[in-house]
């Protein structure tokens, strides 16, 4: 099942890459405003979702984004394959598969099914921010290993409220983006290490400056919970993203995920490549 999904993701991605540059199926949004597919599949930055919707589908259009990301840390390795369907710049459906390699040749797999609704506002136009609500239903593929780790639950659903705004002529005369999230979650290490019985409200944020319309440089922060006093380290990254054209986008980030399951200083690099059509 895991193998099949991974192969499927790669196949779709390869097809998308080969078709995207020649297709003008849906390109109604402005360059970069689709964001990138985050590690959980929802469009946004790298480690946080934003209020933006995947693909370049504007009103009355339909579009697809397909991407792959690789996060290599000191002791862990996370790979995500993700697909997002954007409808009319209003709704996004996403599916992501994560493979999380732990020390000791252990591997966990998590599927995430997401739905995002743009409630109001526009990222660029008008004075109000773009507001969105995202549901991320997370489900582990192999619960036996999770049970061995003494985890309470193998599934959980996050609710994320997001607000995004891009100011034209912002900081240093450059277009400037800010995103803020409030997330309700039971997930431990975003669900990679299972789910708790309790739920917490957490804050997330991102800022980016666009040197020109093809590039974005920014930083992200993601608050993490402390279930039963076992505080997780907050996640953070700095990133550079490149949008050479609407068909393809890519980003590289330096991530600092702190201590994960007792292993300290989990820093490393996040890379993502995605196609839109």
């Amino acid at each position: 099942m895991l193998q099949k999904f991974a192969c499927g993701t790669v196949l779709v991605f390869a097809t998308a890459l080969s078709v995207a540059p020649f297709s003008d199926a849906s390109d109604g949004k402005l360059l970069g405003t689709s964001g990138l597919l985050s590690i959980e599949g929802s469009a946004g930055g790298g480690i946080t979702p934003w209020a933006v919707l995947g693909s370049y589908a504007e009103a009355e259009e339909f579009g697809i984004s397909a991407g792959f990301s690789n996060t290599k840390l000191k002791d862990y390795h996370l790979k995500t394959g993700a697909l997002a369907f954007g409808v009319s710049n209003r709704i996004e459906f996403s599916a992501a598969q994560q493979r999380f390699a732990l020390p000791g040749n252990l591997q966990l797999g998590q599927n995430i099914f997401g739905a995002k609704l743009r409630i109001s506002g526009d990222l660029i136009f008008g004075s109000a921010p773009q507001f969105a609500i995202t549901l991320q239903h997370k489900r582990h593929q192999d619960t036996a290993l999770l049970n061995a780790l003494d985890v309470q639950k193998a599934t959980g659903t996050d609710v994320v409220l997001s607000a995004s705004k891009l100011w034209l002529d912002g900081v240093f005369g450059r277009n400037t983006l800010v995103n803020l999230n409030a997330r309700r979650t039971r997930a431990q290490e975003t669900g990679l290490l299972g789910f708790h019985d309790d739920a917490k409200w957490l804050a997330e944020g991102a800022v980016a400056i666009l040197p020109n319309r093809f590039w974005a440089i920014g930083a992200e922060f993601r608050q993490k919970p402390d279930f039963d006093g076992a505080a997780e380290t907050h996640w953070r990254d700095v990133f550079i993203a490149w949008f050479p054209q609407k068909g393809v986008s890519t980003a590289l980030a330096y991530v600092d995920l702190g201590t994960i399951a007792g292993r300290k200083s989990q820093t490393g690099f996040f890379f993502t490549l995605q196609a839109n059509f």
Partner: protein
Amino acid sequence: MKNSARTTANARNFALLLALFLFFGCAAKPQPDALYQELGAQLGIGRLVDAMIVEIKANPKVMVFFQDTQFDYFRERLIEDICVRSGGPCEYKGLSMAEAHSGMQIRESEFNYFVEDTQRAMQAIGLQTSTQNKLLALLARERSEVIRQ
């Protein structure tokens, strides 16, 4: 002794310079026609609009809305519009944005295609990124009177 006196004097001069700099820096408000000047006044705006018309004519997705347009007339009105909005000494003699786009039912995506034509035109004539962004911010404010009319 001599050295320390000089250091004190230097520090005082520096403080004075800093105070002057802050005073004028904070007092200096941008001129109302700053963007008009950045765009290169009448001549620069003329070049920009010419470049925009080149992009529009090369873009079938935008050109569909310009089938009946007399480009000489459009050029003069767009120059006036950009001049007025950027703080220049002009008078806009055209229709209001809502009137000019009435019945066209321009979609969000089609407005964006025009924005992209404008971006390419600004790039083509070598406007600085910050000037481009200021002009885009002005254009963005007109969107609600342009789409879905």
